[in-house]
């Protein structure tokens, strides 16, 4: 049970403000895709439109080739997990999980709160629902808590209930809206693995919204980075890291943040860069691991002031500042490095083959060099 999802030219405006601008995205069946971006970038709005909880201003959505724009949420064969879990507080865990099935499979009178229980002729269906609920609960390991109310559960357990409620009706597409952001850091890592495993087991299409780039990078087949109501780049995590198409993406992905140095400053630091850079002013960006604290053949030496060192155990992060004021971060193995005191100057080596250049608007400049064909966009 899985489906392709196709978003075509989705826009959304609230009065004057446009939260989504012409967003298009093709999601393959069974794919785990993350929508990631800073808060207010429109990722949650896009998810809600996909779910049918909010109408788009223009554009179409199709699931497995069929347009679903006019279908209500429950008819789209989509399940959603909410940041706040959105469990029904008056129902037990079991009843919570059973709700989507009850609503679909039982006739209207049998769904009524009191009369429903004694409505005749539904016992076979009820038994089947109960069986399905237990299976779903087992899948997320909460079958022991079916009779408890959500208030009696921990945050992680509530999240599992919310997952079970989504799983129970085997939808073709799962939507997850920051499902882990209310959990503490340790639990988040555990649940991350579990959701990824769940995706493996169910094989359904997962669309996952988060503001946490680590979460997006670790779980997804592809990550769509959204900024200002647009998808800036959608690619596999490694591609996104190594080959960002936009300075904003380059900055958003990777921690510590990528260092950016203007071409003028770079040339001022070492004349050798002059021949390597275009003549127009550009911004060069360096990932922390591409900078070296020791001389490397083919790298260019520049001088910087040591600001601060962060010890991470197996590695260290060295924060530097160039004479012109630009910041530079170096990631290095913890062993065999002797560093001067903070405030002292030291030399670092930058790769000669400048990894990434961006123009003044932040767009990536791809240059034909060393036999690479020129391409843009």
């Amino acid at each position, binding site marked *: 049970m899985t489906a392709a999802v196709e978003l075509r030219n989705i826009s959304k405006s609230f009065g004057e403000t446009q939260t989504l601008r012409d967003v298009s995205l093709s999601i393959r069946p069974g794919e785990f895709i993350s929508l990631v971006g800073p808060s207010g970038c429109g990722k949650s709005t896009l998810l*809600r439109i996909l*779910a*049918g*909880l909010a109408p788009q201003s223009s554009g179409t959505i199709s699931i497995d080739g069929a347009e679903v724009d006019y279908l*209500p*949420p*429950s008819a789209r064969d*989509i*399940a*959603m997990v*909410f*940041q*706040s*879990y*959105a*469990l*029904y*507080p*008056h*129902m037990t865990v079991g009843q919570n999980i059973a*709700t*989507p099935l009850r*609503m*679909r499979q039982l006739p*209207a009178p049998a*769904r*009524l*709160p009191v009369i429903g229980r004694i409505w005749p002729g539904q016992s076979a269906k009820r038994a089947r629902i109960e069986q399905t609920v237990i299976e779903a609960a087992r899948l997320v390991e909460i079958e022991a808590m079916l009779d408890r*109310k*959500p*208030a009696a559960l921990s945050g992680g357990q509530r999240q599992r209930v919310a997952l079970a*409620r989504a799983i129970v009706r085997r939808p073709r597409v799962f939507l997850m809206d920051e499902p882990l952001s209310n959990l503490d850091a340790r639990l988040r890592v555990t649940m991350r693995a579990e959701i990824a495993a769940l995706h493996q087991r169910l094989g359904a299409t997962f669309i996952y919204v988060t503001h946490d780039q680590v979460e997006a990078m670790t779980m997804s087949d592809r990550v769509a980075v959204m900024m200002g109501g647009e998808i800036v780049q959608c690619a596999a995590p490694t591609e996104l890291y190594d080959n960002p198409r936009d300075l904003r993406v380059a900055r958003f992905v990777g921690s510590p943040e990528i260092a950016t140095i203007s071409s003028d400053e770079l040339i001022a630091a070492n004349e050798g860069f002059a021949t390597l850079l275009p003549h127009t002013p550009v911004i060069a960006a360096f990932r922390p691991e591409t900078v070296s604290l020791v001389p490397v053949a083919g790298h260019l030496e520049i001088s910087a002031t040591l600001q601060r060192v962060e010890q991470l155990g197996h590695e260290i992060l060295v924060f530097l500042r160039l004479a012109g004021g630009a910041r530079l971060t170096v990631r290095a193995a913890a062993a065999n490095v002797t560093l001067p005191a903070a405030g002292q100057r030291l030399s670092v080596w930058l790769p000669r083959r400048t990894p990434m250049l961006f123009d003044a608007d932040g767009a990536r400049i791809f240059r034909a060099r060393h036999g690479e064909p020129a391409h843009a966009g």
Partner: protein
Amino acid sequence: MPADLTQSSGMVRPVRMGAIMSPWIAYCLATPAILLLALTVIGPIIVMIALSFTNYEFGSLGIQWTGLENYRQLLDDRTFKRALWNTFAYVAMVAPASVLLGLFLAVLIDGLRHGQRFYRLVFFLPVTATVVAMAMVWKYLLHGTIGPFNLLLQSLGLPSLDIFGNRDLALAGLAAINIWSLAGFNMVLFAAGLTGVPEDIYDAAAMDGMESSLDRFLNVTLPLLGPTMLFVVVTSTITAFKVFDTVAVITRGGPRGSTDILLYTTYLEGFSYFRMGSAAAMTVVFLTIMMIFAWIQARVLDHKVHY
């Protein structure tokens, strides 16, 4: 150090609020209120209960201890029993109707995209209006011959109804006024309850297949409003039970006793006939019923957060 001082003197223990002060200040602050409490509430209630065991009549010099005689007489008193019955009938009309109407209004308004403020204003207006003044209006409105309501009925070709002149309709007429003036109050309480229901729950409900508003209402809204509901029911019951103004202004218990209610009967017994002893006994019955409601209300409040 103040803390050392208090410990060595042993007079004042360090206190919970962090206020390390002589209790005398607290007594000074509370004294006026304590005196008034004794003079206007506790004292009078004790005297009132004592009076209910006497045959005291205002203005007469004699007073005799008659034990339970007043209560025994209440059991035989047809007027009192009718008043009690009318009061319960009145409550049975007003409480459910005003609660349901209030809930209906709150839910309907909550679902609106525009005009919420306007509707809240309109439906709350009767709550603010002086009951006596509006009772006058209603009396004229429902007047048997010249009331606009009847003129409207006639223009539709229907027979006119003299509601407050009709034994079978008068109490219901009074109940209608109270429902009108109480529904907005309940609406606001329900609206407050509705704001406590997170928006996400409705989104989840939509995903789970609750398409119709009835499904959403029965499966989500109503259960989540449960605690508010209990509370509003009890509050409305107490309010309806204390009805006095409309009876005193519109019907005065008539026609032929059909709108005699507990407070009005007690009022007449005490302040028109000045039979203080039996009026006190009626008051004790009234107060007892109020206390039962209050007890239920306190229980409800305790369990308000039960999720």
